[in-house]
């Protein structure tokens, strides 16, 4: 499974990358193929790296998470996108899900929560 991480915070990106390399996840054979800090970068990277799963922040500069989700799902309807956001406004998250995302995880999250979400996403 090829994973792409999209988040404007490098701290969050590194954290997701670190947890994704967690030993339990080795069974899922997740291979991080790229990290993007905004929607536009994510779209460019998506075309090159063809990830199977994507973690997606919602509030980002250039192109936000909802638009980016829409674009990625249009390019590959089979891609599984996990929205990770600190939004208190649930309706934006619902919008991302309506536009092709498969799941949602609240920020802040702990290691177990992210692992369990990724497992659900892959299975």
């Amino acid at each position, binding site marked *: 499974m090829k994973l792409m991480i999209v988040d404007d915070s490098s701290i969050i990106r590194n954290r997701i990358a670190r947890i994704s390399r967690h030993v339990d996840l080795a069974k899922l054979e997740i291979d991080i193929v790229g990290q993007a800090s905004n929607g536009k970068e994510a779209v460019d990277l998506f075309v090159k790296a063809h990830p199977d799963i994507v973690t997606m922040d919602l509030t980002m500069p250039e192109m936000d998470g909802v638009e980016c989700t829409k674009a990625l799902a249009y390019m590959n*309807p089979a891609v599984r996108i*996990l929205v990770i956001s600190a939004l208190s406004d*649930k*309706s934006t*998250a*619902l*919008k991302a*899900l*309506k536009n*092709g*995302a*498969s*799941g*949602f*995880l*609240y920020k802040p999250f702990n290691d177990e929560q992210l692992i369990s*979400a990724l497992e*659900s*996403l892959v299975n």
Partner: protein
Amino acid sequence: MSVSKKQGLGKYRVIVIAVALFLVFDLGVLILNFFTSYQIGQDAISINLAGRQRMLSQRMTKSLLIIANDASAGRDIGAGKTELKKTVGLFDSTLKAFHTGGSVMGGNDKMVELNAITSPKGLQILSEASTIWQGYTLATQPIITQAEFTPEQLTTAITYARANNIKLLGLMNGLTNDLEKIASAKAERLRLVQTIGIGLALLNFGFILFKFIRSLRRSDELVEQAQQETDEILATVKEGLFLLDENLKIGNQYSASLRTILLQEIKPGADFIAILGSMSSSETLVSARDYIELLFGNHVKENLIISLNPLSEVEVQLTDSRGKSDTRYLSFQFNRVLVADKISHLLVTVQDVTERVHLVTALADVKGQSKVELSYLQKILAIDHEQMHNFLALMETSLTNINAALQQASEHGGADYHSIINKILRETHTIKGEAATLGLESCTSNTHSFEQEMIRIRNLPHIQGNDMVGLTVRLDDFFERLHLVRTIMSSVTGANVSTLTPVAHASNLVDDMQLLCLSIASDQQKQAKLTADLAALPKLPECLTKELRNITIQLLRNAVSHGIETPDERILLGKSPTGSIHLSCKEIQKDQFEWVIRDDGHGLDPERIKSALLRNNYYDQEALTSMDTRSIVMKIFEPGFSTLTTAHANAGHGIGLDLILDKINAIGGRLHVKTRVNHSTEFIIHFALGRSPVAQSS
């Protein structure tokens, strides 16, 4: 939930076998029937031809006699000969066919197939008939074949025919009877076979019916039992349970609790969104619809969107049958129901979580309360004990005064509520000032909100006694807090606080005022510093010091809030960013004192005061034009006056300066105000020791 096809065949296996047997029986009977019918058909031909042989035996004899008769009368014997030839030929070929089987001319001049006789009796008859027939053919041969025959030959033939005619008839009759008996036996057998076949078929049918009805009844019983169990579950379960289809319609079955929880009748097939719409906001409705639609879609993982459920704890307005509306909190949980790996429905679980929500809120309140109490404790421990005692005594006096005023308001309908409220406001303001001086933030903010409530009531067009009721409750709360602080104090210091008499310590006054000055200034993003020269203070009696302290608190509050500008403004005006306030007490003559508080702020601007008076409708433009500057400035001491457009805890309510005037009057003092716009304001109080009513009374 899916039903296996293999299991289904097993269930119907017996019935399938029974039906197959039924078909086999029917087919067997049919084949047997067909075969026997064919045989009976063959027998009918044989019977028919055997009967014909009887008739032919007579016609042959008759032909011989006709020939003899025609010959003796000298008539043509041709017709007789032809008849004889035909009948003898037919008889002969039929008899042979009875022996060996084969084709023979039937009754309707068509060839028919005749079976050979096989019955013993038939064979015996045939054998006897053949012997007789052999002589018959020999005797008739010359008559048939020769054109001219002798009268002896004819006589021989007639004699033979006469002798054997009846015998032959009898034999053919016997053959016919035998054949008929055989056919009748076959018909009997056919009937038996048919009866047995139909009997078996009926038996089979009965078995099928019995089996089918029994299994039908059993499955009906199971269905009924399952239905009953479902009904029992749905009637007992506390949660509201129902299935939701893709069109967001409620299913046919739902738990009885659903009605109790939603406080309305639910009909099977009812529109869930419409029901939700009757109790919650339109935003909730939009989110709920989106969420449910997502769950019906395939691309979303159910367990990864639970946290987004907009109905997990939704506030709803429910109206009961008597029309009483109530705010409740409901929790709707949605679970996909899969049939053959397809999402057929959502199972919805509804719970009334109002109690839980209230409990959580109450817990938060308790936590907050504990925090407040802890902060009280911290503050109290930080404050000098004597100062705290003094504050508590002052608070008790003021609260008692407020209580008396409120009683006065409730006892005398039509009392002058305005003056009562102003009186209460002055007392409150004193408490607030002292609390702020001691840094008791919680007490300051409580007093502030009490003041706001008073001001709200004061601004009502028609004040009534009832409007004051809420204040009594809040006053009780103050008394409780007072008691709480005293309890904390006594447990900390071990002294009975309530018995201590208030002591005003002049030495603390400067420290307290400096602290208050810094606190108010930082609240308003200003910078101010207080300096003091209170050399004459020790000469004053305690009771007077206490009043002067209260007056100073209000004037200081006023100076920082209204006088001192923000650091930016001050820099623009070419001043130091930190404002300075100076407090002094001098004995100007024997027992004559001057108490001054001076700030270097922007002074009392008559134009600002004028516009505030206009804004609050104190005076109209005309009245203001006729006033001199001094009169206008002195209007700041009118009850309720304020130049600030918004109130904060330190100033802006229009309470304070009128209170100061009251207090100055109480100590028999006189107030002077000196001001220069953008330069300074000075409040100067002159008082004499012997003349102070407060001093005299103490």
